[in-house]
């Protein structure tokens, strides 16, 4: 009996020690947030970083050479303002930023490559609306129209761009294209088609296309459809299409498919036909254009395409390659739309004067000179000093951008993943292989997640 009693005492004692240690003395996270601070129309959002300490932390997705150029662009500002900007890159940015913000460990500023993640955190009340810290009206006049709208949630914008990418560019091999009788400026797609038909008549396919991208094969096709939707029906329908307010197989979208079909499926219009389009890597698409004689001439692709051109062409870009904007459609949307992307800066520390300073600089047209000189960077501001760009080609791109009437983000990046990086890709490949417009659009519509 006594023994049992003692054993019980022992167990009780052990249990008591265990619970008290576990409950009392574990370290607590010194940076833990005290719950979600709501960022309504009044007040500000705050993170746990110290305010006014002349240190601003930025989280972004790009690293390597881009990171170096970004830091170089900030160097002068850091010197004059005395603010130390610490940039961290993470190639898993989309997930990391969400985790860090919800865990109360938000950076002062984050650079979002797509508006989706930004809007999500704005909804959660974690981001400072830009109109409360930046000069919204100036931004609205200097920026390419469409950027501030992309970060809008309940009437307020939550991010401003610091870099842009443009996809609506048509590339051509300079000497060969003019020799073949190609024009370098077009008023409309019909105008362009007339020119390409004439070249086709001489026996060479006018268009180069490559959709191959291993597991992501098909994304180039989605860009084409997006371009066509913008040109056939304009940005409003485009927005409704992206947010699924109209179905994917809406007649207006089918019209875009038909318009693209005329270009891509027209007999002899694209080099090699469907088999070649799907089996050519997007980076190699334009290689046949630099052969002698050229097998094709035109490629519509984003500004990053320079990095994929043949080495000898890259060495002498201005003399070997020319570009023009992918023209609008006669009888469609009136203006010149531009499809592209951009890095959007969002502020998580609303009451830190240093962070506000950095935000102001990042989103102004003064930012980016050194980066522009390195190349591969375009300012989202129409008023950016174009002499900073390293070559005629980039200046021309800037020109295309600043004369655009409306800018839209790549739709497939904004659609749900099942569609945007799933069925939209795969069904476009089937479309190229012969599926009809209706079959393709309906298959994608059916895959749209129901919620």
């Amino acid at each position, binding site marked *: 009996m006594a023994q049992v009693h003692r054993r019980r005492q022992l167990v009780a*004692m052990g249990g008591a020690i265990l619970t008290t240690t576990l409950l009392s003395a*574990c370290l607590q996270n*010194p940076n833990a947030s005290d719950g979600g601070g709501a960022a309504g129309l009044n007040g500000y959002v705050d993170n746990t970083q110290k305010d006014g300490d002349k240190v601003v932390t930025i989280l972004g997705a790009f690293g390597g050479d881009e990171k170096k150029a970004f830091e170089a662009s900030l160097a002068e500002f850091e010197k004059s303002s005395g603010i130390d900007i610490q940039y961290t890159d993470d190639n898993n940015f989309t997930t990391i930023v969400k985790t860090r913000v919800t865990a109360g460990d938000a950076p002062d500023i984050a650079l979002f490559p797509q508006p989706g993640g930004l809007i999500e955190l704005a909804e959660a009340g974690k981001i400072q609306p830009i109109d409360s810290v930046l000069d919204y009206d100036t931004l609205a006049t200097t920026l390419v129209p469409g950027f501030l709208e992309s970060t809008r949630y309940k009437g307020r914008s939550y991010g401003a761009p610091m870099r842009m990418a443009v996809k609506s560019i048509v590339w051509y091999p300079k000497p060969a294209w003019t020799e073949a009788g190609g024009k370098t400026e077009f008023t409309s797609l019909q105008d362009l088609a007339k020119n390409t038909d004439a070249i086709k008549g001489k026996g060479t396919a006018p268009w180069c296309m490559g959709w191959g991208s291993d597991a992501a094969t098909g994304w180039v096709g989605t860009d084409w459809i997006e371009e066509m939707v913008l040109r056939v029906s304009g940005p409003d329908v485009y927005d409704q299409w992206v947010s699924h307010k109209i179905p994917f197989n809406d007649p207006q979208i089918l019209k875009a498919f038909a318009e693209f079909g005329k270009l891509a499926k027209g007999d002899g219009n694209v080099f090699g036909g469907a088999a070649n389009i799907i*089996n050519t890597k997007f980076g190699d698409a334009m290689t046949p254009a630099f052969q002698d004689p050229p097998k094709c001439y035109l490629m519509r692709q984003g500004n990053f395409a320079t990095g994929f051109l043949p080495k000898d062409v890259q060495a002498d870009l201005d003399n070997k390659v020319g570009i023009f904007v992918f023209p609008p459609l006669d009888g469609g949307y009136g203006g010149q739309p531009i499809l592209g992307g951009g890095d959007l800066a969002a502020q998580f520390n609303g009451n830190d004067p240093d962070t506000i300073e950095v935000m102001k600089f990042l989103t102004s047209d003064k930012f980016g000179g050194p980066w522009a000189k390195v190349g591969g960077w375009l300012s989202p501001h129409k008023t950016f000093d174009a002499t900073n760009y390293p070559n005629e080609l980039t200046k021309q791109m800037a020109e295309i951008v600043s004369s655009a009437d409306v800018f839209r983000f790549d739709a497939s990046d904004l659609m749900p993943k099942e569609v945007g990086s799933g069925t939209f890709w795969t069904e476009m490949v089937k479309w190229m292989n012969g599926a009809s417009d209706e079959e393709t659009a309906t298959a994608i519509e059916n895959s749209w997640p129901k919620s």
Partner: protein
Amino acid sequence: MSTATDTVVAPQRRDPDDINRANVPKIVIGLFGLILTAWALGNLFLAFGYYPQWFLDNKILIAALALIGGVGGAALLFWFLNMFIEGLPNRLSQGIMPYAFLLPGFGLIALMLIYPTIQTINYSFANANSTEYVGLANYKDIFGSKDFWNAILNNLLWLALVPAITVAIGIIVAVLADKLSAQGEKVSKSIIFLPMAISFVGASAIWNLVYAYSDKSQSQVGLLNAIVTKLGMDPKTWLQISDGKLNSLLMMVILIWLQVGFSMILLSSAIKGVPDDTLEAARIDGASELQIFFKVIIPQIRGTIVTVFITVVILVMKVFDIVYVLTNGRDNSDVIANLFFNEMFANSQAGRASAIVVVLLIAVLPILWYQVKTFREEQMNR
């Protein structure tokens, strides 16, 4: 006499009593030490994360301390655990001791294997974010989808062909290499074994070049199309041709190419282990070489054949990399593992993805069970 027996018997009587009694100080020190070590270790690792400045913000110092703390702490934990259990009454202590030392290992298996399995089964009944139960909706979805059945069909095809061909080629090569000179055997085996060292993704990239397509006006990069065009035919888009499941068959070639080395090595050693006297006896009885092969050698290496076959079967059930890299399931070439990957990571449909995995799990179970059974039987026969 009586005193003598007393002195002999008495300690015996006292002894079991003494051992059976709990050694309280040992228990207390052991338990207290356990808790203290766990608490200190926990705080040490939390401090690494929360207060890096205590460690001079030096990552190398933190890593070194983590190593010392982790290994030393684990040793200390075991030492206190041992002391605690030794302090318990003898019968109890002897019963508990093996379990106490198995516990961390078993705990890890449970944490890494059993818990995820159960959670996956659980999530297969939940929605895309695993926030709400949806009953059998996921299973209805996947069983009702054409893509799923197409993937199942492809998997069955892979299963029917790849293991059998791998084993067959493995045996042929092993037997033929056995007849070569020692040097020739070494070289030929090494060459066939070489692909084993290549990762699936690497192999897929290599074979992607074999199957590559360029327009007929261009020079052919793809080996197969280079041959075809030399013969005067048009180049073909090999991996897009789903007639007769050609694209799936072409991808199976890659897996066979990768696995024949493994099959050959195991079977070769099994063939070498066949006792010479049985072959001799068969020869004296007038058996032909073919008869010797099928009636004497094969029955004696049956166990190895089954092992190789089942290993390849399980590998084929999980085949993913090759399909993902080469076609990502386009043109009716999808398999279950790739379908799962796309549901999970491309579409963020955790529920449907889990349901697919559960189906795969159920399909693998009988094979696993058969393998364990044959393995046991073989062990008993030895």
